[in-house]
């Protein structure tokens, strides 16, 4: 009797190339069928996964040695050449990877099992970057696949991970089936985040997408599915009534919800007005409306996330204490706000993003802003936010999004802290000060020094309002009680799980 886990994931799997996209579902898919050289464990420490490593004393040469028994799903052994090709492709795509390759002297396969990575100057965070679990981890693919362009999606889905992708049963956006890879040799030791032994204890894992939250809830209660990756918090009371289902949060870090302004156009090209807007907002209101259940959200003014090594809440008092409408009004007046409408984009087809704009619109209006909230689908928003036109001509002033905390927990990876004007992330702040601070951070070689720079960046961010952190929330998962031993991890993983009959 085959053991099958049917899991409802947060979104449909459509893109199968985990390097070309940063979409979480594709990353999750990547962890199913691919393996990584190095992976961070639950203490944020890089651990050997496919490979062990040694670092030269000058911190310039990293030598990785593949462990024995690694095999691709097509039966071929994993070689160093495969790893080199995969890392190279990844390096062209991932922002952290790019930083490393900028200072890479060479990356080569010395023999079948040995990879030598030589740098021009030290990069203290190399292992953290290569081992990071989000957003684009360097998955190892066969050389023939990885040698393709990083801008073109791969078409062959062969990995060396613990599960095999079943091509025939794949329906883009609907369902995807994985079979246990019989020849996979797990690492010794217990699984911890993406590291440790990936022991698969079921035969098949089937991911399905259920566009209707209610349906997923009903299905898990009737035993038709085993697992829901993200449960809408408002619906928890329904699940609470069921004895067969457990609700739990497996990722303590959770998500950070943020607002981002457009620095190129009035009114938010004016620092005072940005500050006024920030002052008008209250994390409690946003989270209260978005999540509703205080068990699952946390007011947090730290741009790097509360509970992370760099987290610090300096300068976020108004945000965390319910906003300051009067202060905002005063600032607005000082700034001479002339009533320029604030075009606020509201995505309506992403449940976790619908409430922020509505609450913010109200708060901004209370403070005296003239708000023009425009509803649109997420895809339109994604396109529109890339437009640098005037807000009245297809541009924008303000939008909101969510990040997984591991995606923004360091100035190295947080895209919003890029201050390079047109080269920066949407909103395009030109902020040399933050760039200088980031350089300091890269240079900082001890955790203490890093923390120090991080606090400075925190303060700078809240003063300059590069982005507005609106607090953190956790997304509960639901599992049938038949499933046991799921490991806690920000990425849902299907090894280690056992399923009772």
């Amino acid at each position: 009797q085959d053991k099958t886990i049917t899991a409802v994931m947060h979104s449909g799997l459509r893109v199968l190339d985990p390097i070309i996209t940063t979409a979480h579902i594709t990353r999750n898919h990547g962890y199913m069928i691919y393996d990584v050289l190095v992976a961070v464990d639950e203490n944020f420490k890089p651990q050997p996964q496919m490979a062990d490593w040694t670092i030269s004393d000058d911190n310039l040469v990293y030598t990785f040695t593949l462990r024995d028994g690694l095999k691709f799903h097509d039966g071929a052994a994993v070689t160093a050449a495969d790893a080199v090709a995969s890392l190279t492709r990844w390096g062209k795509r991932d922002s952290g990877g790019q930083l490393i390759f900028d200072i890479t002297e060479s990356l080569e396969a010395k023999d079948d099992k040995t990879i030598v990575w030589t740098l021009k100057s030290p990069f203290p965070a190399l292992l953290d970057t290569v081992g990071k679990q989000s957003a684009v981890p360097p998955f190892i693919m066969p050389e023939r696949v990885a040698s393709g362009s990083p801008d073109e999606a791969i078409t062959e889905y062969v990995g060396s991970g613990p599960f095999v992708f079943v091509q025939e049963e794949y329906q883009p956006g609907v369902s995807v089936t994985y079979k246990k890879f019989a020849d996979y040799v797990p690492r010794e030791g217990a699984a911890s985040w993406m590291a440790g032994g990936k022991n698969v204890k079921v035969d098949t894992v089937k991911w399905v997408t259920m566009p209707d939250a209610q349906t997923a809830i009903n299905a898990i209660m009737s035993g038709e599915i085993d697992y829901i990756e993200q449960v809408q918090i408002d619906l928890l009371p329904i699940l609470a009534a069921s004895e067969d289902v457990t609700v739990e949060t497996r990722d303590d870090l959770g998500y950070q919800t943020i607002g981002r302004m457009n620095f190129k156009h009035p009114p938010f090209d004016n620092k005072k007005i940005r500050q006024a807007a920030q002052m008008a907002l209250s994390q409690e209101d946003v989270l209260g409306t978005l999540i509703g259940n205080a068990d699952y959200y946390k007011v947090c003014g730290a741009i790097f996330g509360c509970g992370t090594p760099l987290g610090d809440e300096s300068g976020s008092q108004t945000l965390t204490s319910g906003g300051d409408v009067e202060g905002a009004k005063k600032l607005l007046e000082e700034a001479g706000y002339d009533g320029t409408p604030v075009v606020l984009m509201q995505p309506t087809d992403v449940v976790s993003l619908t409430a922020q704009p509505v609450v913010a619109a109200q708060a901004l209006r209370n403070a005296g802003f003239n708000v023009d909230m425009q509803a649109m689908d997420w895809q339109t928003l994604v396109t529109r936010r890339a437009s640098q036109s005037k807000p009245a001509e297809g541009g924008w002033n303000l939008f909101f999004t969510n990040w997984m905390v591991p995606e923004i927990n360091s100035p190295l990876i947080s895209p919003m802290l890029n201050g390079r004007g047109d080269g920066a992330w949407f909103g395009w702040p030109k902020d040399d000060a933050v760039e200088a601070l980031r350089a300091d951070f890269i240079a900082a070689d001890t955790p203490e020094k890093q923390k120090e720079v991080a606090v400075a960046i925190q303060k700078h961010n809240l003063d300059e309002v590069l982005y507005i952190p609106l607090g953190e929330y956790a997304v509960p998962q639901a599992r049938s009680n038949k499933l046991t031993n799921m490991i806690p991890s920000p990425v849902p993983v299907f090894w280690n799980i056992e399923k009772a009959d």
Partner: protein
Amino acid sequence: MLGYIIRRILAVIPVMTIVAIFVFLLLRLTPGDPAAIIAGDMATPAQLERIRTSLGLSDPLHVQFVTWVGLLLKGELGTSLISNTPVTQMIGQRIWPTFNIAVLTIVLSVLIAVPMGVLAAWRHRTWVDYAVMAFSVLGFSIPVFVIGYLFIQAFAIELRWFPVQGYAAPSEGFGKFLARAILPCLTLATIYVALIARMTRASMLEVLGEDYIRTARAKGVKETVVLFRHALRNAAVPIMTIIGTGFALLIGGVVVTESVFNIPGIGRLTVDAILARDYPVIQGMILLTSGLYVFINLVIDLSYTFFDPRIRY
């Protein structure tokens, strides 16, 4: 007649051409960038541009159009921009659930609605008539998802007669198919029953006062025969129209029901593709549905001449 049928079948070509051009332009008018969906949140403008180029989206419009038409002429619909899967394969996977559910729904609706409408007309202005009207109004004005949830609550959760969600192909066993299809079909049928029943009632009322109904009664035939053979057939043309356009709509895919019951049909495919600006999939879908509509409409038109021999084309 044969000539007419052939002409109508050939009409697929101009129709599809119009649709193709129209949809192509419409899509390019809509803001949205598949590259952004592929690349995800952190992509830089330069990366987006490279992806766009690799997808062929940076080419001038007419070049894109010619490329697409070239593919079409070879009988291909292209490959999904997002999932890299051939469009024909995607549609092939998704069309059958929709089709099967649509057929079952229409059969079910007609079987329920037509007698209801006939009864309402026959008992015009009695409680039967008013009951049918009340039902129809509810059918019109309750959102589909509410009906779906209610059915699930009642039949799947409380009574446990059927599964909550999902789809099984008839090839996996007809019983299995039926168990999963019945609730979505009933849900969809609610609207169609409402619409068809009211249309039946309305056109039956037009007919019931006619002299030939009196003749039929004079022959001493049973009242059911009077109603269903004599009156209904004369009233059939608008009813057929509603059934036909309803079927066409169903074949086009009904998103809400597909979501509520988690059916992998083309309704969701289309909406997902539209939201992701997956041009080849949208274009393929719309071409396909337009071809289907031409066919369905032809069948409706032919059915008119069957029901009313005075109609000629």
